[in-house]
């Protein structure tokens, strides 16, 4: 009964939205698209952009926002694989780490670093790394793909940890943030708000790059792979190339996120490659909701904010101090989400909107009945 209702509503919705709406994959439909979506997005962007002006002394908050944006970009890049292409990668830290070490090694070997060169290098190294690892990984699928991506990232971890001459080994590398000169205008990245604004710019560019990708015919092909890869092959697609290109795009953007993180921390360590980094970003995407652009960002923001909140509390049960057990709390939250809201925060929002629409639809139907149903 409720399925019929939902179907009816879908028809009504499609009818009123015109030709374009139904041509989009439904699962990427964000209910606030159109002017409402743009409005909310612009407001959020504006708020993020002016925050340091209003509260610039609070370097802790600005630093936290920087971290949220970095992980937002990182999660977005993974989502191209996980949410759109259906590739469950458990080694996305590979590219995050490659980006981080790119700027780390540049910082230790090259005088007079430029920020733009660092970002370009991390983009390139991340993308090339993804090309190489992807070349092997996409030959497998399912659990084997997952294990292979994990194995590659752990290999990189071992290299970063052992190759002391090049990577600093267990000491890591110190990264001094270079200057950024844009058209004669210098941004002081040593200041928290300077780096924050640059990170925000990178995040926004990354967001719109991915938005373009998923709305392009190529992005639609990726969704086809996720939905039914063998059928796409039977339509004449060589799906391997599509997966590899998706890998390269995701790897490049993850590399940029890694570089920004290195600048933010002023430090690079082998932990960037460690499987917990891959796991954390995977959790962010799943908590936010895979398969939409907003979901992973919300997931990353949520995880980072919740971490700060929990660690700031003094709750304890006997000797169990909650603030010292953040990962355990995150694990519990994750379990609840997987069981109750498997489509994440976006899924929760969608079912809420669906509920409201259904109720409104019912009210309208009632109104029509009262009028004799003439206008249908």
């Amino acid at each position, binding site marked *: 009964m409720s399925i019929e209702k939902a179907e009816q509503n879908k028809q009504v919705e499609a009818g009123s939205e015109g030709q374009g709406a139904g041509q989009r994959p439904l699962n990427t439909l964000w209910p606030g698209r159109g002017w409402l979506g743009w409005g909310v997005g612009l407001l959020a962007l504006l708020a993020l952009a002016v925050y340091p002006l209003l509260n610039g002394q609070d370097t802790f908050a600005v630093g936290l926002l920087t971290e949220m944006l970095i992980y937002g970009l990182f999660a977005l890049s993974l989502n191209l694989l996980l949410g759109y292409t259906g590739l469950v990668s458990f080694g996305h830290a590979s590219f995050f780490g490659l980006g981080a070490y790119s700027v780390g090694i540049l910082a230790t070997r090259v005088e007079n670093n430029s920020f733009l060169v660092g970002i370009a290098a991390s983009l390139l190294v991340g993308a090339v790394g993804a090309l190489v690892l992807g070349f092997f990984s996409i030959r497998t699928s399912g659990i084997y793909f997952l294990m292979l991506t994990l194995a590659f990232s752990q290999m990189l971890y071992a290299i970063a940890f052992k190759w002391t001459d090049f990577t600093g080994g267990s000491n890591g590398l110190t990264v001094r943030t270079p200057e950024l000169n844009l058209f004669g205008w210098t941004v002081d990245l040593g200041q928290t708000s300077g780096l924050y604004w640059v990170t925000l710019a990178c995040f926004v560019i990354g967001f719109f790059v991915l938005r373009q990708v998923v709305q392009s015919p190529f992005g639609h092909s990726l969704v086809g792979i996720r939905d039914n890869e063998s059928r796409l092959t*039977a339509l004449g697609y060589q799906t391997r190339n599509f997966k590899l290109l998706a890998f390269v795009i995701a790897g490049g953007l993850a590399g940029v996120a890694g570089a920004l993180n290195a600048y933010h921390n002023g430090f690079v360590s082998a932990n960037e490659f460690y499987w917990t980094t891959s796991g954390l970003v995977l959790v962010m995407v799943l908590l936010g909701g895979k398969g939409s652009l907003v979901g992973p960002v919300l997931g990353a923001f949520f995880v980072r904010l919740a971490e700060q909140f929990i660690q700031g509390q003094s709750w304890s049960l006997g000797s169990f101090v909650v603030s010292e057990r953040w990962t355990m709390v995150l694990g519990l939250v994750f379990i609840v989400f997987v069981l109750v809201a498997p489509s994440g925060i976006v899924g929760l929002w969608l079912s809420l909107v669906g509920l409201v629409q259904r109720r409104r639809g019912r009210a309208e139907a009632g109104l029509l009945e009262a009028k004799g149903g003439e206008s249908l």
Partner: protein
Amino acid sequence: MSLGTSTEVGRAALQVTGLSRNFGSLRAVNNVSLRVEPGERRAIIGPNGAGKTTFFNLVSGAIPVSAGSIRLGNRDVTRLPDWRRVRLGLSRTFQRNNLFTSLPVFENVRLAVQRPQGVSYDLLRSARSHTGINDRVGEILEQVGLSARAKTVVANLSYGEQRQLEIALALATEPTILLLDEPTAGMSVAETGRMITLIERLPPGLTLLIVEHDMEVVFAIAQRITVLHLGQVLTEGEPAQIKGDPQVREVYFGEGEQ
């Protein structure tokens, strides 16, 4: 049309020679040879387990052959992967609906259309702005009678509509040879009638191979019929010949059809 007499002249659309496929000790397809002329409508019939679907899977490249060769026009495609054969004009539908179930009908067809149009790698424009592609999708939906369902997610289509969409996807790849694997399986009488009309209206230049259980459908569509039995070609001929063939009656119609 007596296509049978022209076998030695011109180039066949599809030429299969000595095709075999073993599953363990079972010879599902055993030394099958077959020649289909351009524009021909050929039905392949046979009782359950005759190897019809295996034969289709071999021709489309879904599974590798054990022996024999497959030629499309003048090209040997025996070792080519399935996606390459599609690009050479060989397209198929599936016996069990094989669609992009979480996507709307329009999107299903668009995926099929954008590849032969060469834009499936396009990253710079949005799919919605490719109006040429979208118009072509509209035409195909019109052709198979699904225009009204363009926005419906495939999972919400009726079974018969999903069968229609199977054909739409196959047509959208711009084939010269179309393999239809039991297009009316599981359909109601009314749906079957619509499907026959749809198939009859396909462009006459399109070569058609159809596996079908429903004899009415076969006799409505086919110009020639090949009968498979236990993986081998039992006989081949025009519908009237096949109807009267005592061997065919024994292995095929004898098994409960009459």
